[in-house]
């Protein structure tokens, strides 16, 4: 034993033990790698690469940089605050001329348009006329559209000139840069993203809490019933999984809308007046009800898997030691289910934060979540960079939450099944 530190151990025929061990295990290791290789490739192609691309998009946008090279060159050689001279106008005019032939002028306009609405059409219309333009270009451009004299436009173009910028993250946090380059809040009526982030996290927390309140007793029942009965109930819990998400969400619309089943019954019972039917659909209530229903199994299953192996003798022991049933629950049973609560809550919360289809269908205006805005930017406004920045912020928030959970509870205590 003492000589283990003195000299490395060797095999019987004098080879180093470590090398022999590595050789002996290499075959098994190679086979293990081959087994996981398909999944590894799949994850790389379908998960790591898209997310990397998304993160890249959120800081890099070369629509302007690539298509207005002369203008970018002028901004680089002239410090901020220089009024545009004839050379600057010439750069713009020639870039637009090239852009018209290559049909890339609208792209450059789109990039400026993100920061200064209305400029996309300016770029397209001016590019159409640029082919006939003669020096002096300043007069020609101003004749084409007087907006070219706007200092704000030039400040914006200077700002979007670099391909890599934090503009989209600022925009995603309702911030922008003023003419002097200071970070300021956007005007009151344009602040939407922070409010949406808060609403998303608030609604997700509410849904998680409701799922916990409703799922805990069900999981306990499932865990304590005899296996045959609990299997039957488990099917009822899992039944929603086997039904289309769309069908379930639509079912809630049928139930909860203004002329829906629930309102009809309430009116028939005389609980509410026919003129004042409850608004339970196309608002936050609709989003909460439908999402709670859809996410409930994700709370029940981890709870069940933690509760099932807790033997009833713990509760009996506590009772025999003099604890009331409430004390027994609070001090003996509940603490042992914490890993399940943590796992279920984390799962439901993370799913809820990124949920898209249900709020889109039943959320109305007040029930929209951040994911709906991300989808809007990716599909409608085609501002992929802003959509990517929002998604990246969401990702960071979830990772932060995961880290916090690990610090507070410990990720090794997480138990999914």
């Amino acid at each position: 034993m003492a000589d283990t530190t003195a000299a490395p151990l060797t095999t019987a025929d004098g080879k180093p033990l470590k090398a022999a061990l590595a050789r002996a295990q290499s075959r098994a290791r190679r086979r293990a790698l081959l087994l996981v290789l398909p999944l590894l490739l799949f994850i790389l192609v379908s998960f790591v690469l898209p997310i990397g691309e998304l993160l890249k998009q959120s800081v890099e946008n070369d629509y302007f940089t690539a298509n207005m090279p002369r203008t970018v060159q002028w901004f680089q050689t002239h410090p901020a605050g220089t009024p545009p001279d004839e050379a600057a106008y010439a750069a713009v005019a020639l870039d637009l001329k090239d852009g018209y032939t290559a049909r890339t002028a609208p792209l450059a306009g789109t990039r400026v348009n993100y920061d200064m609405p209305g400029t996309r059409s300016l770029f397209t219309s001016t590019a159409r006329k640029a082919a006939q333009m003669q020096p002096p270009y300043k007069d020609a451009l101003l004749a084409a559209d007087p907006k070219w004299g706007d200092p704000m436009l030039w400040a914006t173009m200077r700002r979007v000139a670099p391909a890599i910028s934090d503009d989209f993250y600022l925009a995603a946090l309702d911030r922008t840069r003023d003419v002097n380059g200071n970070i300021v809040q956007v005007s009151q009526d344009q602040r939407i993203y922070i409010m949406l982030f808060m609403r998303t996290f608030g609604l997700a927390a509410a849904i998680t809490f409701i799922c916990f309140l409703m799922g805990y007793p069900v999981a306990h029942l499932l865990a304590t019933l005899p296996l045959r009965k609990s299997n039957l109930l488990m099917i009822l819990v899992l039944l929603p999984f086997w039904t289309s998400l769309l069908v379930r969400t639509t079912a809630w619309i049928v139930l909860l809308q203004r002329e829906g089943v629930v309102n009809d019954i309430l009116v028939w019972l005389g609980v509410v007046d026919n003129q004042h039917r409850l608004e339970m659909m196309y608002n936050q209530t609709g989003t909460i009800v439908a999402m709670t229903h859809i996410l409930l199994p994700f709370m029940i299953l981890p709870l069940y898997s933690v509760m099932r192996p807790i033997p009833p003798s713990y509760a009996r022991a506590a009772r025999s030691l003099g604890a009331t049933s409430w004390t027994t629950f609070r001090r003996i049973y509940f603490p042992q289910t914490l890993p399940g609560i943590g796992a279920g809550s984390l799962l439901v919360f993370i799913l809820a934060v990124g949920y898209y289809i249900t709020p889109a269908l039943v959320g109305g205006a007040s029930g929209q979540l951040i994911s709906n805005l991300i989808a809007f930017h990716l599909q409608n406004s085609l501002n992929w960079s802003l959509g990517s920045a929002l998604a990246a912020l969401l990702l960071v928030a979830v990772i932060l939450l995961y880290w916090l959970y690990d610090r507070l509870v410990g990720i090794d205590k997480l138990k999914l099944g």
Partner: protein
Amino acid sequence: MAQPAKGDAFVEFDRVQKSYDGETLVVKELNLTIAKGEFLTMLGPSGSGKTTCLMMLAGFETATHGEIRLDGRPINMVPPHKRGIGMVFQNYALFPHMTVNENLAFPLEVRGMGKAEREAKIRRALDMVQMGAFGNRRPAQLSGGQQQRIALARALVFEPQLVLMDEPLGALDKQLREHMQFEIKHLHESLGITVVYVTHDQSEALTMSDRIAVFNDGRIQQLAAPAELYEQPQNSFVAQFIGENNKLPGTVEGIEGGRATVRLATGELIDATPVNVTKQGQKTLVSIRPERIEFRPDLLPPGAHTIEAEVLEFIYMGDLFRTRLRVAGSDDFVIKNRNTTGQRRLMPGEKISIGWAPQDARALDPM
């Protein structure tokens, strides 16, 4: 049934019945009185109703009929946490999320005891089971035997008058189990508590108990002190269940002066003590302990009947020789002889005559 061995009735089962499904009785009319300070063991095969009785006493099952009294007070309607009964569970049921100290503090905390008093009591309880150094460990960091001691300390820390133990040593290995049997026995003696102990291990029951209640089929088959139970079983179930036992079926030929003559199916005559046979012609099962059988003629009581036997197998067990014989047509007749100097080792195929003192053979009801 037998009367309590000593003192006053502390625990009483009064015509208690229990049914789970309303169709069959798991416990059939149980009457049992346990004295203060007594160590009573409920022994029986699984499904005999012994654990159900313990659970009814602890308050986890309700009696379908009858009354259970603790210290003269009916407790049928008293919830378990107000009964003040300590209990040791089969798998210890130590709370896994608490340290040993917290486990022991739990019954004291729920009784609203102050911190200083709690600590003193925990210390005393841990010292009692020689686990004083383990207070800050978690149950998962303890071995099975150590967990067992902690479970014992936890059941005793709030100084209950009555402690129930549900097969507490079942998960331990043989050596540790035997050691713990003596420790529990000594704790019982030094603390003067009443213990009701459930087990299916007859040697455990014999070692520890003041009295043993042998359960089968929802009834107490015999309630007696260990020696009486072993030496004078009242029926063939008890004779079979406790210790090793040879049984010879036959018919009573005559009863005279506390001695019965039984004719076996193969025609031989043997001597026995009548237990639950009364007259000639009755079917009976004669039960004889393997260690009470002699094969050396000089050791047989004078005038005793002998019976022919053929040696089938000889097993050397260290302190004992265990020899299997063919007797009266059956192949599972066993005799045990102590490995003393000069003890003869029988050879397979050898023909011998065996016999016994009439009081060691008991003519019981045929099963």
